[in-house]
């Protein structure tokens, strides 16, 4: 008798739990980034005016983006496979946050080097690590080349090729 009384209580409890899961799903959707945030996740950079060995900083998804027309005389960096060819020129484009703990490294044009003031990490003009602590090269964001312009946030064929070769991060 008492078992039977408890039985319906347990069924109801389980069913209420199901409802709570539904409510949790709605709550999860409420925490998602807004559509307007996602729609703003694309940045177009015009590279036609870029000068050699001058670092340009852009913004994409709230993060600084380094754009550097790599100087030909820096042979090692110039031949790096991570560079992006746009209109016959080779560019280094990456998220400007040190892969160690997220500070912004500064560019030293005379040395063709990025040096991070926080913990002393160093990268060359193609973003490869020269000196620890950073564990990996500066990260290349998804991009696609459109003429003289580069759109960040969209993975084009060049990006996919780099990714397959394991060179983006």
């Amino acid at each position, binding site marked *: 008798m008492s078992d*039977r*009384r408890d*039985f*319906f*209580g347990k*069924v*109801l409890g389980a*069913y*209420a739990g199901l*409802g709570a899961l*539904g409510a949790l799903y709605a709550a999860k959707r409420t925490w998602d980034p807004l559509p307007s945030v996602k729609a703003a996740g694309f*940045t177009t950079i015009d590279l036609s005016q870029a000068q050699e060995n001058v670092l340009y*900083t*852009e*913004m994409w998804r709230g993060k600084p983006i380094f754009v550097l027309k790599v100087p030909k005389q820096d042979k090692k960096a110039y031949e790096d496979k991570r560079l992006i060819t746009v209109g016959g020129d080779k560019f280094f484009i990456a998220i400007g946050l040190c892969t160690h703990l997220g500070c912004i490294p500064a560019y030293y044009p005379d040395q063709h080097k990025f040096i991070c003031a926080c913990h002393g990490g160093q990268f060359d003009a193609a973003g490869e690590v020269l000196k620890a602590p950073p564990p990996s090269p500066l990260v290349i964001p998804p991009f696609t080349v459109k003429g003289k312009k580069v759109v960040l946030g969209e993975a084009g064929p060049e990006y996919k090729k780099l990714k397959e070769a394991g060179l983006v991060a």
Partner: protein
Amino acid sequence: MKELKVLAVVVFFTLVTYWGVEPYAHSVMHKHVEFKNFKYEDLKPIAAKGDAAKGQALAAACAGCHSIKAAKMPAPMDPVTASATYGVNPPDLSLAGALLDEKYLAHFLKDPTHTAMVAHKFKNKPYPMPPMATDDQSAADLVAYFKSIAPKEVTAKEAYEFACGRCHEMRYAKWTQIGEEPKTKPNIQTKMDEEKLKFQEKLAQYKDHLVKYLGKLPPDLSIIVRARSEDFLKTFVEDPQAQLPGTAMPRVGVNKEGYEKVFQYLEEVGDPSKPKREAVGPWVIGYFILFTFLAYLWYKSQWKGLK
């Protein structure tokens, strides 16, 4: 059963209170204006049969102020300059034949101020649009022409832009009186967005002209569907003076389909959750019906043999 009687008493008083503060109070508060189904019965029917070819010749005169994109005629001025001259940017006429009532359009061409019910605003100054048709025949010819060039399908958004969009902003749809806000980007060094500022300057000029022309800035229509009842909106559009005597809002003269298109757009922007409500509602209510049924079984099993 005693408990159901108690429930009936509670429900009765609840419903009386609801009826009193909602339907009844609102019926007392709001003016009743009869809806006439966009028939424009105050305007006499036009007997003359229109000839589109003759109308086309007459329409050349329209192009002095209006663009007719459907006939590849560009606007003679940009919106801001046009508003400086006329008070408001004259509409592109491509959709006139599709969205406006035929009879209204014919009468409007003959006598714009009376047909648009704005004569009270133009006692001492000329209405920017002069009468374009001297008789019923030429009016009918023009109407026939506009009907011939009108596209078969008009989107809800196009209907809004044509009928409302040159006076009313809709910021939730990024629509301004001079078109959609362009997507611009600030200079990363100066943080200034020059293009945007230039657009805003133009918009400010346009709005100034509009206020001079109408007396006040027409309201943003982003959520007008929540701020006014459906009944108010259709009777107001049909006959603005009946709802708000003295208003600067002209009778736009949309036909029934034209109004439905405009309303559809107002609803898409102002009440975007409607389709979601309709999709989720039955599930939630179904969930609680089953919940109540299970709770009833529990209740009955717990209360068995208590009395």
